[in-house]
């Protein structure tokens, strides 16, 4: 009777795992793949406007804040180092390191968004000011939205970290937002280089 009770399974049936990749990581892969397609569509519009249309970039009289955006790039890249530090810490069962890494990443992410909002308020043109404005706000705004989503994921991870949810054996809740955060950083490097520098 006891053996029978032990074999009894309560709750929904266990999901079939047909892939070598963990289902949570696979979900993040598919999400990132869809994001690459979304950014690809925006970059196609950007290159079309800039190359095929042959307009000056940026149009005469308009200046992009290259230096401020460069500092913002450094802030975002630093946040990738801190999230990497957070994950490496919890892999060694260092909870304080993980918490500090996550809090620093959150702080740097918020600073990035605030700096971008300030840049928008002072840049001197609006999305309705021609194709240039539309593409600039479209691409940087799309990226900013992704930073916001990443910050939400990291906020949940940080709350759980302070509640003692992670360990050296179980840290998916930090790893998956970390993968997403690095992806967001990679996209920013592409956006910054193509829009501000080249």
């Amino acid at each position: 009777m006891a053996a029978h009770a032990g074999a009894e399974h309560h709750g929904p049936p266990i999901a079939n795992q047909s892939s070598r990749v963990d289902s949570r990581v696979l979900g993040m892969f598919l999400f990132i793949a869809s994001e690459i397609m979304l950014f690809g569509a925006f970059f196609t519009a950007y290159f079309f406007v800039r190359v095929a249309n042959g307009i000056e970039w940026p149009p005469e009289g308009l200046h992009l804040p290259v230096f401020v955006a460069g500092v913002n790039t450094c802030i975002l890249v630093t946040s990738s180092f801190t999230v990497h530090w957070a994950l490496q810490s919890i892999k060694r069962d260092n909870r304080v390191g993980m918490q500090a890494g996550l809090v620093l990443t959150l702080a740097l992410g918020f600073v990035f968004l605030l700096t971008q909002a300030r840049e928008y308020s002072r840049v001197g043109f609006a999305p309705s000011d021609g194709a240039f404005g539309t593409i600039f706000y479209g691409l940087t705004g799309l990226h900013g939205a992704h930073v916001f989503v990443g910050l939400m994921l990291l906020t949940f991870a940080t709350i759980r970290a302070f509640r003692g949810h992670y360990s050296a054996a179980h840290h998916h809740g930090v790893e998956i937002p970390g993968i997403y955060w690095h992806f967001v950083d990679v996209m920013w490097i592409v956006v910054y280089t193509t829009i501000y520098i080249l």
Partner: protein
Amino acid sequence: MQNPFRSEAEAFRFLIRTIVYFAVIAVAALISTWLGVAVFVVATSGIVWWLFFRVA
């Protein structure tokens, strides 16, 4: 070819490589537009070769 986002550590390495790739192209392009194009072609060809022929 392996997925560069299969783990956080791999994604972090991919980010570093992306920074180096774009930094080299940007510096070359700032010196001369055609040098930037040349560096882009050479760097991209090198990466494609490494991804599809060397790692396979």
